[in-house]
């Protein structure tokens, strides 16, 4: 049997850089999430891909929001199929790098603790 593959086009790059896209093929498993694929990519193909998540399964931390085909989703609950998808960062938050945006609440920012001028708002 030929291996089934999921195809992901992932936006790369930091704030102020022109976005680039990398294509990845990931072994498909029934029921897999977008986060499962992103973790597989970091582990097996490209560990420099920046993603943000914590709880992995529980859908309680709410840290893993990204855009899949222009729709905002939780990467850990969005199911992947075998049709190609494009994954990018949230567009209404400041981009840090790749799929990671600044979602830290204003009063919890490290820059505030360090007394640095706020980088947004």
């Amino acid at each position, binding site marked *: 049997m030929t291996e089934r593959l999921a195809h992901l086009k992932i936006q790369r790059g930091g704030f102020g850089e022109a976005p680039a896209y990398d294509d990845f093929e990931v072994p498909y498993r029934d029921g*897999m999430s977008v986060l499962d694929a992103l973790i597989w990519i970091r582990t097996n193909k490209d*560990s420099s891909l920046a993603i943000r998540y*914590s709880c992995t399964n529980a*859908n309680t*931390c709410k*840290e893993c929001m990204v855009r899949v085909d222009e729709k905002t989703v939780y990467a850990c609950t969005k199911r992947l199929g075998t049709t190609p998808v494009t994954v990018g960062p949230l567009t209404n938050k400041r981009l840090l*790098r790749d799929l990671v945006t600044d979602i830290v*609440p204003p009063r919890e920012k490290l820059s505030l603790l360090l007394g640095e001028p706020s980088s947004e708002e």
Partner: protein
Amino acid sequence: MTVDVTTDVLVIGSGAAGMYAAVSAARNGADTVLVDKSLIGRGGATIMAQMTVAAAVGEQEPDHWSHHLQDTLESGRGLCNEELAAILCEEAPLRIRELDEWKIGWAREEGHMKQVMAPGHGRERCVYVDFLNTGPAVARTLRTQIGRAGNLRRASELTITSIVVNGGQVAGAVGLNMETGTAVTIQAKAVVLAAGGLTRLYQRNSASVNMGGDAYALALRAGAELIDMEFVQFFPIGHLAPRLVGMDPIMWDPFRYKLGGRLLNSEGDEFVQNYGHAETSNKYTAPRDVASFAILQEVAAGRGSPAGGAYLSFEHIPEADLRAAFGPVIDRLAANDIDLTKHGIEVSPIAHYHMGGVRVDGQMETRVPGLFAAGEAVGGANGANRLSGNALSEAFVFGERAGRFAAEAIGDRVDSWSNEAARSAVDEIMAGRHVAKRQSGPGLASMLVTLQKIMWQDVGLLRTANGLANARTLVQDIRWDIGDYPGASDHRFALSMQEWFDLRNSLLAAEAIIASAQTRTESRGAHQRGDFPSTDVNQTHNLISRLDGEGLSVMVAPLISKPFDLIPLEAAE
């Protein structure tokens, strides 16, 4: 070098223990800073906890903390630090009531808190928030208190990489600024280490990404001791298959509390009763270590499920009962193509909690003056096996105490910060910034997967001298491979750098588990040795780990016992 932040009390980690410690330090008058490598209140186990919290509030039926203590000690297989266990049980009701005042919303019926039975408890003792919402409610409630406290600052995305000790005293900490990849220096008179557990070290786990054992490694490197590191608790019925998204792998526990449910092997037979515990279909009473061990043995005997576990079946329970007990959760299962009335699901033991940890006294202070610990990071209270529901109670009680005693301690302490003492910690972060900016290909993430496999195979549910020796060598090899500072840097959102510090910590925590497991040549509670299958009364003692110039060493320490009176209870109505 300049000091970036100055405070009285620094709290590392913002789960239940860290948030409680921060609130407590602040209300006891200390200028307090709370930091987390993830987002405040979201990164650890706390927000993922779904079910119950054990406390003898005695609202469901008469209860007294001495009975909670008796159950805790029995579950601990003779190894509990009885002073810590007594503190946990005596103060848990205070914290449950305080959280109630803070409007956490404990489930109630007929005007009283609803308390349910959980395995190992002799009474209906465990409070919760519906539906499967205890952890998120805890996190939300404590975050609100943090927002209200006056002299309390907080910051996300700061990974503490070293605790700074000078002249034998805590002086502060150094951390990695995740956004910029640079070092942050924090001067503090007292530090509370509340950085959570280590279950991410295992291939099958219920952990978040931030549970790789930082607390234990930070403590060891600061000169503190660890206790009983060999006791990792495996949760017997973690979800294994089919792939379930958006739900925690330990979600079947509450189902079993409320509805029973049958644990079956591939031949369709119940088996837990064959391993020394009489469990019947409608009751969920087998302690965690017994149930985990039973599943493992069935798999080894060739009677496991296809994915390598056991079946959990609710097929005999009417749909209406399932819905009445779990409402919306049934729909979430349906979205995952799971219909409990038609099929069993596959479950397996997964690493879930760590009984061992940082060695502290009754004031939560380590042997390093000014260094306190709280929450799952602390070892000893739960001995060789933890009762369900005790982990959150422990986080609240030890958190509150650590914050309070840290605030008290700063009174007689002067700042002991020196740049020299912080130098190497700052340098290893800055060294990482000078290496290649971007490194693709599999990197540290795949090394972690290798570590997880080693730990699962050789340092998991069933251990042997050979397996442990093999694991120790492999762990030391990986440690050698990763070098002395991060080998990749990424200046915006420094994930690769963080992963290097994480892995270094995970490897040290793993080695501490292995070293203790090698020393304990008996089977007891969560530590099962294939080559020493019975419990040895002569090993009814604790094992203490230390790190010094010679590396990691393990030594025996006598138990801390504290006799108590079991207060008689009126008969339940």
